[in-house]
Structures are given as structure tokens and as C-alpha cells.
């Protein structure tokens, strides 16, 4: 019987950037047992030596030529922006540095 605690779910939610309510955390934790039991069936078979398939079609080496095509106009690019300023996307203050 697999399970995840409320705190496990909270940690995953924070990794996934979802600010869940206490109720959601508790609910999800309670559902996770049966969900994990269902998916853990993948571990029932002996999979030693079996190759992993990450892609259903056996294709390789799909490239495009290094040729510039027209971009969107800045108006199009910014058309969905919740906020903008000086032709840039305006976003709330960023805490912490980039990678």
C-alpha cells in the first residue's frame, strides 16, 4: 500500500508551483494511496533488460535548415500579456536569481 503524506503533497505542489489549500492537500493525500497503488502495477513485471520507449515512432535526426523566417510582430507577441510596458512583458518582482 503506497501513500503520500499531506507534507509530501505540499512539497510536490510547491515544486509544481500550485498554492493548494489545506483542504486540497489533505484530500489529495488521501486519494494518492489508491492512485499510487494503481500505477505501481508497472513494477509488478520483471522489466530487466527491457528497453524504455519514450517515443512511439522510431524516427531520428529530424532537423530544420538554419534559415530565418518572419517572427511575430511585437504586438502579436504581447497580445496575450496580462501586463506590458515598453514592448516588454511586465511581471511581478522576481525573487532569486536565474539558473
Amino acid at each position, binding site marked *: 500500500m503506497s501513500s503520500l503524506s499531506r507534507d509530501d503533497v505540499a512539497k510536490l505542489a510547491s515544486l509544481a508551483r500550485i498554492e493548494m489549500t489545506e483542504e486540497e492537500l489533505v484530500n489529495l493525500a488521501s486519494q494518492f494511496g489508491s492512485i499510487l497503488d494503481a500505477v505501481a502495477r508497472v513494477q509488478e513485471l520483471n522489466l530487466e533488460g527491457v528497453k524504455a520507449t519514450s*517515443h512511439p515512432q522510431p*524516427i531520428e535526426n529530424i532537423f530544420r535548415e538554419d534559415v530565418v*523566417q518572419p*517572427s511575430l510582430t511585437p504586438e502579436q507577441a504581447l497580445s496575450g500579456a496580462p501586463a506590458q510596458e515598453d514592448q516588454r512583458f511586465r511581471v511581478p*518582482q522576481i525573487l532569486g536569481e536565474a539558473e
Partner: protein
Amino acid sequence: MALTYDDVISKYEPVLGLEVHVELNTESKMFCSCSTTFGAEPNTQTCPVCLALPGALPVVNATAIESTIKIGLALNCQIAPYSRFARKNYFYPDMPKNFQISQYDEPICFDGYVDVEIETEEGPKQFRIEIERVHMEEDTGKSLHVGGATGRIHGAEYSLLDYNRAGIPLVEIVTKIVPGTGKYAPEVAKAYVAELRDILRGLKVSDVKMEQGSLRCDANVSLRLIGSDVLGTRSETKNVNSLRSVERAIRGEMIRHAELLNDGKKVKQETRHFQEDTGLTRSGRSKEQAEDYRYFPEPDLVPVAPDASWIETLRAALPERPSLRRKRLKEEWSVPDKEMAAMINADVLDIVESTVLLGADPTKARTWWLGEISRIANEKETAIADLSITPADVAEIVALVAAGELTDKLARQVVEGVIAGEGKPSEVVAKRGIKVVNDDGALMAAIEKVCAEQAETADKVRNGHVPAAGALIGAVMKETKGQADAARVRELLLGHLGH
């Protein structure tokens, strides 16, 4: 307690690790067809793919793959017969998909090395830097932080994002840990980055402009007690943006670590940021827990499986390795060490070679580029490459001097004229009416005049004190407004005075 560098190296041995990110100079981005031109108006080089609009899909740029393989080959790497892209998942506003398409356990190139040479107290010494992997990924957008301290992320009220840079192809070159450099660690690191830059420039795959960010270095440093084989905790200093900074950052981190260790404190494993003004690093985001990037194979892309003949074609077309080329040129041109170093420092090796290939004498070519032309570039505060004088111009000038049609002094005027945009050397000569006086009659007249004016000196020469002739020659040159050939003047003068 403030330590000196000597204190540090008497007790500790540094261990380096270097990660270099190189922006490739492809026309279009890594996974979409937007232009990569530097400095465009914000958000004019974006599309559904590089903005991560819902539904958009990446397609790999063929030239980026080719460039990456070339880099791997130039760094003596193995090229993977099969490799895949992977998603590196983390949230950050300058990264539209909130995952970076990168490579994880299947990089396209791996297990290579670069040899670098530095000057030590015991003479030149070679170090081998082993390369762990060379992989492909994509750059992020740029954020502008508004409010609070200028441009700083801390205290900003909000940020403005420009995604023109998002998706520009990046190649990440990661070394294995580099032990055994001892006190030369900073110099070795600098030499490695410089060598890498030269190799990449030779391959023509990147602009390698550190100041524009097309080559960025992250330096990992840790210390261990001399004699110990236990690795210390490392710090990772990000975005060190000049060769000099590579050296300074590593030296600074070595001292900082040693001070902590000597005080019985621990070095924190963290990201630090190099500060150009102080030469110190400051702590970046400290991670409470190691970030879990949840790498998995990128399902929107298919594997890269370069066939052997493609790799061999690329290998055959590789340019000469910069270090070998330097060695060869040094021998061919018989350049002293110091002069060779000066040329490398001034970044004129390519241009001198082009000039020599156009027929100029190597010493003459070097002297022009490193001397007069460098001086003018300095004066104008511009790069030599940006002056409007070409190897062909210099080769022509050298030829004119050799033919006796210009004196060195006149040639300097011609160089000046070419740089001022007055045309090719021959045109400058014609326009300015520059001409060597090689009419012996005219020269003799000037010589007789000077000998009469400076009879005392002339007598000294007549009596066998030849070095005194210098002053007379100078005066003759002045009399002929520098247009005479000094050698011919000397010959005629000495003859005139009985030698």
C-alpha cells in the same frame, strides 16, 4: 582574518571545475526560425515556439547540431552515435516553457580534453583539462528590473521581459574536476577559457564575445588540505564575463574559502555572483534543498544519431588547433617568445597571418600591426579589427617600403591616410604626393649643404669617427622632408666624406 594568496596555497590545494556556455552564431534560434541578431528591439524576434505559446513545438536547427559536433571534435571528444534532448524542469520567468530543453544523461559529445600552457616560475608548463561533456541547450530571455536599486533584482518593484534571446542555441562545455594546478589555478583557468575561445573562434561557430555574453563562464572552486584526497565543498561563481575576471574570481574564491576554513567555518554549497567592481563574489540564491529538475527525454523531439561519415567529414574539415598553429607560426616567422605573447595578447595573430600570406615579411607585418596600427587603435579607443585598414593594405605598404618607394616614416603617413579613409595605400601616396627622393643629384646637393653647415661633425667623420654620421644623416633627411631613403643617404654621405 584576512589571508594572502600565499597563505592560502601554502595550506590548501584548489580543485577547479569550469562550465562554459557558448552562444552559437547560427542565423536562427535553436528550436525555431526567429533571428538571433544581437541588439534588436525587444520582443521583435519571437514566435509561438520561443514564447512557449500553447501548442507550439520545437524543431532542431541542423547547423547548431553540426557546430556542436565540430566543437566536440575540436575538444578531442567522443561523439555519441545516439543522443537525446531532455527537459530540465524549473520555473523562472525568463524561461517561457518553464523547462529548458537541454541534454541530460545522453550528451552529444563526451570525454575530451584541452591542453593549455602557462608561464610558471620554472618556465612554460602544460596542463591537461579534461572535458566531461559538451551538450546543446537553449538560452533564456532577458529581464530588466525596475524600481529599487538600479537594475538589481533585489528590491525591484517589477521586471520587464524581452524574449529575443530566448531560444538562442547554447553549447555547454563542462570540464571534469581539475586538480593539481596548485597556485596556478587562476592562471590555468584563464588559459583554458582563452584556449577555448580561440578554438571556438577558429571553428567560426560563435562570436565568442565575453562582453556581449556570447561566451560565459561559471567557475566551481573548492579547497582541500594539501595531501588530503577529500574534496572540499565547492562554490559556483556564475557569469564571469572576461578572461581577467576568471582569474580574479578564482583567486578571490580561494581566499574566501580558506578564510572560512581557517576560522573553522563551513563553505556553503551555493551559487555566487562575481562583481566586476570589487573583484569579489556575493552570495546568490541559496537553495534550501537541492533543486529537483525532473529531467526526462524531450518527447517533442526525436533522437540525434549522427552517422559516422558525417562526423568524419566534419573532423577532416577541422581547422588547425590554435596551440599548434601558434607553435607553427612562431617557428615559421622566427618570433621571440615575448613578441609572440604580445601578438596573442593584442589578438592580432590572424590579421598578421593574413598579411604574411599576402606576401609581407613576417617581422614587418607584425611590427606594423603591433606598433603603429595598435597605437592608432588605442588612440581612437577602438579595436584593430574595426579600423578600415586591411591585411592587403599593410602588405602593399610593406612592399612599397621594400621597393624603396616609401621610407618607414612616409609609410606611417600612408597608414594614417588609409585609416582616415583616404583609400588604398597607392591612392594615399598619389593624393598626398608622398614620394621618396631618389635622385642622387638632389641628395648630393642636400649632403653638401649639411656638411657645410656642420663642418665640425663632417670632419669627425672624415677622420674616421663614423658613428657621428648619424647626426648628419638626420639633418639630410630633414632637409629632404623625410622623403629620402635613409640607407641611400648614408651611402652617399659616407662616400662623400671619404669612406
